[in-house]
């Protein structure tokens, strides 16, 4: 009897142990379901894969234009074809971006997934009003790509997002490539969402964003051209979108837009040029194309010891008195630009003889240096002097160079920076001339 009782007890103990182990094993199995994403699963056909987002401000509401991936079949193979537009457009509006996204889901009947979003385009009207709140949705969302490009549309974001691009599988992908290529060619600087947010977060920095414009055929074509309209069989333009400059933001609001040489001046100062083409004119050459293949810019702050050295002693001079005592010429910035270039193409002036020699190259280098000085001065005047926008990290450079001086300046920095002097010291070396020494016509 005792043996049976012991046996029963042992069996019960074994069973309870097995039960416990079974429960724990089940719990572990549950965990694998949760951690592998099998909970609240959404099939691919239930998701709308957003590729580009356009945000406009219209009638006191946020208007969203979403470019959603919608592959068109390429015939028998069933793959994705590059010839048709593999995208659909969804439009919605709301008081906030979140509300507009929710409304877009109702229109589409799918859940909007922004994890693959490549570009965020903000309309000019919203940019002038302030975009911080509009992009907050993307910065707080964990699924959103914080490294998506952020751009400003010259007019409406919808124009850019809905533009017909006859290249590649996805219009948004081409849009991203346009931005990357423009950045590589030194036409403008591509800005990612997190870079813009970082600039906004800094108490004295100002932000910049590239501007894209839409080349409307109606806008461009003259009356004669309209009469000689190409036939429907003519090959279409690849893309009606082009880089139109850089927008300057102060306190999250767009205040200015730079174009042409000003943009490159901005890029020289920000050390953002990887490769660019400088076209100059000289006595010999009507045009000479210089391809800058290597460039490096250093922006240095110089402090006048006699004034700033004394000012630097915090505690001896009250903060209130400091801005008056810091002379206008106390801080000077020096920009050193070192370029190495290839002489790519030349067009001679009428009657001029083409000889690629040390003199003509030195002449071109000198002219290129002057051009860089002009471009940098134009950018500096339009941003710092005219708008009090610190897009060159001047405040941070002063802070790193002389902490005490920065403490005197920081409270009135937007005004104080307007009195800063800039010296540009470019070095332009043309050390490659290609494979032909005698050229031009």
């Amino acid at each position, binding site marked *: 009897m005792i043996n049976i009782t012991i046996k029963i007890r042992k069996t019960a103990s074994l069973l309870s142990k097995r039960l416990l182990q079974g429960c724990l094993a089940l719990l572990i199995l549950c*965990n694998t379901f949760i951690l592998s994403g099998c909970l609240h699963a959404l099939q691919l056909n239930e998701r709308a894969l957003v590729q580009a987002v356009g945000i406009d401000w219209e009638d006191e509401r946020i208007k969203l234009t979403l470019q959603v991936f919608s592959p068109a079949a390429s015939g028998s193979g069933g793959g994705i074809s590059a010839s048709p537009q593999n995208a659909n457009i969804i439009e919605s509006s709301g008081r906030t971006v979140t509300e507009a996204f929710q409304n877009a889901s109702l229109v589409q009947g799918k859940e909007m997934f922004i994890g693959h979003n490549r570009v965020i385009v903000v309309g000019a009207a919203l940019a002038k009003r302030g975009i911080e709140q509009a992009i907050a949705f993307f910065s707080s969302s964990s699924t959103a*790509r*914080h490294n998506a490009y952020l751009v400003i549309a010259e007019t409406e974001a919808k124009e850019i997002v809905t533009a017909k691009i006859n290249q590649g599988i996805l219009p948004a992908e081409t849009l991203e490539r346009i931005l990357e290529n423009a950045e590589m060619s030194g036409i403008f600087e591509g800005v990612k969402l997190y870079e813009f947010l970082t600039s906004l977060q800094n108490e004295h920095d100002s932000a910049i964003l590239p501007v894209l414009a839409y080349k409307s055929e109606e806008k461009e074509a003259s009356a004669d051209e309209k009469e000689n309209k190409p036939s429907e069989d003519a090959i279409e333009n690849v893309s009606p979108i082009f880089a139109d400059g850089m927008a300057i933001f102060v306190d999250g609001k767009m205040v200015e837009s730079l174009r042409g040489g000003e943009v490159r001046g901005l890029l020289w100062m920000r050390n953002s040029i990887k490769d660019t083409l400088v076209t100059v004119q000289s006595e010999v050459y009507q045009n000479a194309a210089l391809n800058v293949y290597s460039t490096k810019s250093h922006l240095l702050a110089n402090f006048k010891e006699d004034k700033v050295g004394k000012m630097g002693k915090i505690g001896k001079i009250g903060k209130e008195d400091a801005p008056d005592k810091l002379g206008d010429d106390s801080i000077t910035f020096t920009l050193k630009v070192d370029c190495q270039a290839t002489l790519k193409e030349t067009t001679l002036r009428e009657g001029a003889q083409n000889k690629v020699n040390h003199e003509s190259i030195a002449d071109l280098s000198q002219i290129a240096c002057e051009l860089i000085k002009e471009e940098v001065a134009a950018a500096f005047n339009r941003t710092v002097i005219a708008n009090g926008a610190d897009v060159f990290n001047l405040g941070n450079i002063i*802070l790193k160079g002389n902490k005490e001086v920065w403490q005197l300046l920081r409270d009135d920095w937007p005004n104080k920076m307007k009195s800063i002097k800039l010296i540009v010291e470019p070095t332009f070396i043309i050390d490659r001339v290609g494979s032909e020494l005698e050229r031009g016509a």
Partner: protein
Amino acid sequence: MTIGSSAQACIAIPKNQAASQYISLPQFIMLLVVSRVFNDLTYVPFFSKPVEGTAMLYGSLLSAVILGIAILPILFLYNKHPGESVITIAWKRHKVWGYLFTGVYFIYIFIYLVGGIAGFDYFVTNVVYPKASVWVIAITMCGVCFFAAKNGLQGLSRLSGIIFVFFAIGLLLIALVSIPSMKMLNIKPLIDKPVESILSYAVSTATKNSEIVMLILLFPKVRTHTQRKGKHQVSPVKATMGLILISLIFTFTIDFLISAVLGDLSVTQTFPYFSLTSIIEIDLFQRLDAVHMVTWVCVAFVHVTLHAMVAIMLLKDILPGKARKFASPALFVLTVIMAIWLGIRTEWMKIANTPTYFVTISLLILLPIIAFFLSKIKTKREGNPE
């Protein structure tokens, strides 16, 4: 209660289990470092005082120095009493001291255990599954970790070794990919109360370090094997220096990457390291947050399991004989309830993240000093039997 039985769960290991309970010094260091890394990866500026990147960098260096100094009494004690822990010494003196010491350490470890589960919950429900219930995550994570805790220290240590290597490779990859996105201008000199902010961050980091307390409690379980001596106790200085230095390398690297890439943006991010990994990219990968997620889940598992294991050990020391078998399930239930509560009431998460200077100083300095005097009294009495 006799000394042997009371200290059994934590220190005096039965002979048949001894082989599976001792771990080597490298295993021990890797285990603690992996557990420590959880705090760096789950750092939420919202729950503590926002600190500039530069203050974080200097602060993490200073915190290593502070810990190095704070641990001196323990090193002294463990050199004097090899193979014993603070708790064993207290039990040997008197059971009241034993209960007191074990109880204090248990409460401390339990708070970190709950904090670990709540931190895991907070990340998962904020980033991975915004629609998931807090309790689902808490129960499953607790279940897995308590089950793993049941399987002993050696298994967890071996796993930590693998995770340590995986994490180090992941961090190296993230660091290399971050290089193009780094801006050294983001690391700025401090102007607003620099000394205060560095000191505050350093003290806060040093005091919110449960792994150093783990080192105190688990050190007697570290053995090294040599042909000449066989298995024997290792130097506590080596273990401490290893933990502090390797943790510092990881913490400093993480802080540096966050500061150099995110700059001022890091202060506004809920999970700065996660933000960093979701931003950086190379041609092959558009984001590296998947690398972070995998290592983070593994690191969280080690952190919670280690705390659960030590908490169970300590609770078993306090409980009377028959009640000991309920220590693990009771602690499981209590942990789940408290973690869910913390997960729902985020204002309490903020309070839970407040540095507890006094508690840490007591555990690191005060109790070891008391233990030292207790051992002295004991030795004197043993030396002069009247």
